[in-house]
Every structure is written in C-alpha cells, then in structure tokens.
C-alpha cells in the first residue's frame, strides 16, 4: 500500500499543477471573498460567492465517489487547515483507488466475456447487434476470481481507509471543540471585565 500511495502522489500532484490555473481562478474578482482549495481533479465547478460551506458534487463516472469542494474560511486555524488537507488527500486517494478498481474490473470483465465467447465459438455480438453476454453462472467464475485476486489489495485499502476515517472524524471533533471554545472565550472575557 505504501508503494501505491507513493506512486499515486506524483499523479495527483501533476493533476493539481495542470489544473490549478483553472477552475476557480477563472474569476479573480471572487478570489478576495472566497478562497477555494485547488481541486485535485478536473472539475469546473465553482461555488457561489456567498457560500461559506463545502459543496458536494455528483458521483464521479469512474470511482462513483462524490467529490467535495472544500471551503477555506479567511480565518482558518492551523487545525482546520490540517483537517481540510487530510480530507482533500483522502478524497484524492479514494478517488484513485476506486477509479482504478472500477476500470480494472470492467476491463477484466470484458476480457473474460470475450475469451469465454471465443471459447464457445460465439460472436461478440448477437444477430440483433447487441453485445453478447454470458449468463450469471458463467460470470460467477469471474467474480470469484476477481475477488480472490484482489484480496490483499482490499485488505491494505480497508486498513488505510479505517485509519483515515477515524483520523478525519477525530480532527473534526477537535475542530468543533476549538470553534466552541473560541465562541465562548470572548464571552468569558466580557464577563471577567
């Protein structure tokens, strides 16, 4: 998993570099009011100026995960920044894994269907021009093979996902406490004066 992550990072960084000039910087007059985190993938979405929340998009075509556009407040604390960066990085890491997983699955499924059809001596297309498919029982062999082949990869992913999920939630808790504390503190000062 470490090798995968270090391989994934340059790709992500390259994506960031390639697209950091676009997206939300296309309208510089909005820059003063709202800073946006550079999206790690191609996304032309820009939230409205007045919005002070994160925005979540439709499911990605490849990974089925919904990208989040993180809002950066002007007075972002170091803890909030750390949380946002962790969430951004986790999002990119998840995106990478699932896009790769789904594309590999579909590719291997096509290959399996083609090879089975050839072995049976059938065409890849039926008379009506539709793509020929195998029955669910024949596909079951593929599903079983795919699952066992990727078992180790899934184990590493699960472990990392649980760690990240806990870390993000923990930091969210810390940030929430920090905000509550900040809200209470001026009141404490007032009451002491």
């Amino acid at each position, binding site marked *: 998993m470490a090798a995968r992550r270090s391989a994934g990072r340059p790709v992500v960084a390259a994506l960031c570099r390639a697209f950091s000039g676009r997206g939300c910087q296309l309208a510089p007059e909005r820059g003063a009011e709202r800073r946006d985190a550079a999206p790690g993938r191609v996304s032309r979405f820009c939230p409205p100026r007045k919005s002070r929340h994160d925005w979540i998009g439709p499911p990605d075509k490849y990974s089925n995960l919904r990208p*989040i556009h993180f809002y950066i407040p002007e007075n972002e604390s170091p803890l909030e920044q750390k949380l946002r960066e962790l969430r951004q990085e986790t999002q990119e890491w998840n995106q990478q894994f699932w896009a790769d997983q789904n594309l590999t699955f579909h590719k291997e499924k096509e290959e399996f269907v083609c090879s089975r059809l050839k072995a049976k001596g059938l065409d890849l297309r039926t008379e009506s021009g539709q793509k020929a498919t195998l029955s669910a029982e024949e596909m079951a062999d593929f599903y079983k093979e795919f699952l066992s082949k990727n078992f180790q990869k899934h184990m590493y992913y699960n472990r990392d996902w649980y760690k990240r999920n806990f870390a993000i939630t923990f930091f969210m808790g810390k940030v929430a406490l920090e905000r509550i504390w900040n809200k209470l503190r001026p009141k404490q000062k007032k009451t002491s004066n």
Partner: protein
Amino acid sequence: MAASPHTLSSRLLTGWGGGCIWYLERRATRESPRRFLHLLRNVNQQWVTFQHFNFLRRMYVTQLNRSLKQQIKPKPEPAESPFLEKTSLDETKTEICEMRPLVPPSLSLSRKPSEKALMELEPTSVIEGSRALGKETKEEKQWKEMKLRADDLPGILARLSKIKLTALVVSTTSAGFALAPVPFDWSCFLLTFVGTGLASCAANSINQFFEVPFDSNMNRTKNRPLVRGQISPLLAVSFATCCAVPGVALLTWGVNPLTGALGLFNIFLYTCCYTPLKRVSIANTWVGAVVGAIPPVMGWTAATGSLDAGACLLGGILYSWQFPHFNALSWGLREDYSRGGYCMMSVTHPALCRRVALRHCLALLAMCAAAPALDVTTWTFPVIALPINLYISYLGFRFYRDADRKSSRKLFFCSLWHLPLLLLLMLTCKRRAREEGVEAPQS
C-alpha cells in the same frame, strides 16, 4: 429492490435535459456559423459563471447557472473584443477536448492544442461545445451545498439509522417479549422497545460511518446520507453515541442488566465484528445471523430476566431465518460484491451459499416443531405453521437446484413475509400459564 422510483425520476430528468440540449443544437444548426446566437436571459438567473472570460481570443462561452440555455459566440474580429484578451489558447482547447465524454482523466492531459487546430474545430465545436456545456451545466446543477438544514435532519437521521430495519428489529424484540411466559408488563415493554430501538439506530449509524466508499459503489446503498454528504461523519458518530448511551443505559437500569449486556454486545458484534468481517471472510454471514438472533432473545430476557430454553429457541428461529433471507438477497448482488471487495458466500462459494440456505429452511421446520416441546407454544403451532414452512423450504430447494436469479428473488420475497407471519402464529399459539390448563390457541 426499491430502485424503480429513483431510476424513473432520473430517466425523466435525463430526458428533459436531453430535450433542452437537442433544442439548442437545432437552433445552432439552423443559424449560420458566423452569426451570433442570442443569449436567452433567464429571470431566475442568480449568477453567471464566466468560464473563459479572461482568456478568449477566438471564442468565449457564457454559462448561466441554474439554466440550460447557453450562449456561444464566435468572435469575428480580434480588434473589437469587449473582453479581456486570452493569455493562451491552450486552455480553451483542452477544455473543449475534455468535454468529450468517456475519456479517462489521465488521457486528456496529454493533448497539446494548436491555434490552427482550434480554427478548424470552430464550426463543429460550437455545437459540440454546446452539447458538452449542456452536460456541464447539468453537472453543475447537481452540486449541492453541504449545509445541514434543521427540517432535513429527521429524514436524514432516519435513513442513517436504517429506520425500517430498526423497526423490524424492534418488532422481533417485541415478539420475544410477548412470547415470554410471564404476565405482560407495559412499562417494561416500552422501556425494552425504546432501548432496543436506540441500540439498533446506533449500530446502523456506525455501520454506515464505516462503509462510505463501499456504499458509494453499490447500487443498493449509494443513496445513503453519508455517501451523499448530507451529514458529516462527526455528526453520524455523535448521533450513534447519543443513541447507544441512553439505549444501553435504559436497557441496563430500566429493564435488567442481562438485557443491557446483550444490547451492548450486539452493537459491538455488528459494528466491530460483522462490518469489518464483511471484507475479510465469508464467516461474516454467520456473525450477522447471530446479530439478527439476539433482539428476540433480548425481548425474552427483558420480560423474564433469564436466558432460558425458550429464549434460545426464539433466537435459533431468527438465526436460521437469516440464511435463506440473506443468501437469496446476495445472489443478485454478486457483481457489486465482487467489485466492492466484499467476501460473500454467493461470490466465493456459491454451492455452499445455496446449501446453507436450504439447510436452514429445514432447520426452521425442526425448530417450529420443538417450540411446543419447550413450552413456548401449543402443539397447534407447528401444525398451522407447516404450510408456510414447507413453502419456504420448497423455495429453498428450488434455489438450491436452479441457482438462478428468479429462484433467489422468490426465496427472498418469501422470507420477507414468512417471518412476520411465523411470529404472529407463534403469538397466537402461545402456551398459556399452566394453571389455566388451556391447550387451544387464542383467537
């Protein structure tokens, strides 16, 4: 299973969106390539996104948010541009290229546009651009602000806690409570009811918290609140804690410590054993069956305060029921499980899956026959339950033999009505206290 309303509405939206884009394309083709298309102002226009506002030398695109109507304006003379000059053409071209669908992100990075190529593209790309931008505007409309509104919260929390499943769990607990051979105590019943409900909500919320990326990739679960970003993980965990603590406390101190311990154990079993085990080994199904068997046992122990044969029998019936129910369901989800990395019998050991389902259908028959022997019900019960038990066993046998989608669906849907009916019949045939000496079933 409940996917049809969603697919219908999404098809309607796609059809409507497609219709608007088709209309725009027709307008574009009718007019000469050199003419300006008119910007149709929308009264609901709230803000305008200027995509290439500062960059265009040849072409610019103006989009209206919240509207499918667009303007595409080829610029005839460079000198008369009212807009700021573009610094490079490259970005325009790459954006037009990227609008072409079905290209994985990594491939689109490698295109290097040239001015000449852009000029050649102009007439055709106007239309393609409008089509792609129609898609893009539609995509933009699907972005939602992650702001939690107070009136949305009950619905979101209901879905987070899988309220329908919780209702089923609580009804099995109630059945266990009612079947216990003690006088019915309403206050104890209500405390058990609420406590078990809260514990179930907590367990389901934590389960969803753990499974966000996996749920996103499966059709059955992709509309859950955490997947859609309607609620933050922190709020989900806080909600789960706020349900678990009072729920278990209520069961422990309001009912009895045994029931509280069972409730806590069940939460632990579901969240920390079953949920991670789903991705590791097929043993998760057996653990999950235990999770389903504990609630009626909790109902029984809440009423009687002890774990006796009747409680175990009731737990056994629920345990056995889980297998035909879940194995039949999982038969149709094999592709999703495989792609998502879930270790389920239906994927890895299909023959075992069907064998186990059939085995437990027959076990149900046996346990219903044992019910009167353990003084839970009268002898009438196995007799009147025989038809439905035979029917589910028959469907289990068909599933075992045919191993196809049709037989799996029939078995699954049968299990949905089989259990409530069985519990109802048990209640009807409940063995009354010995002093009354009643053998006949209550009406």
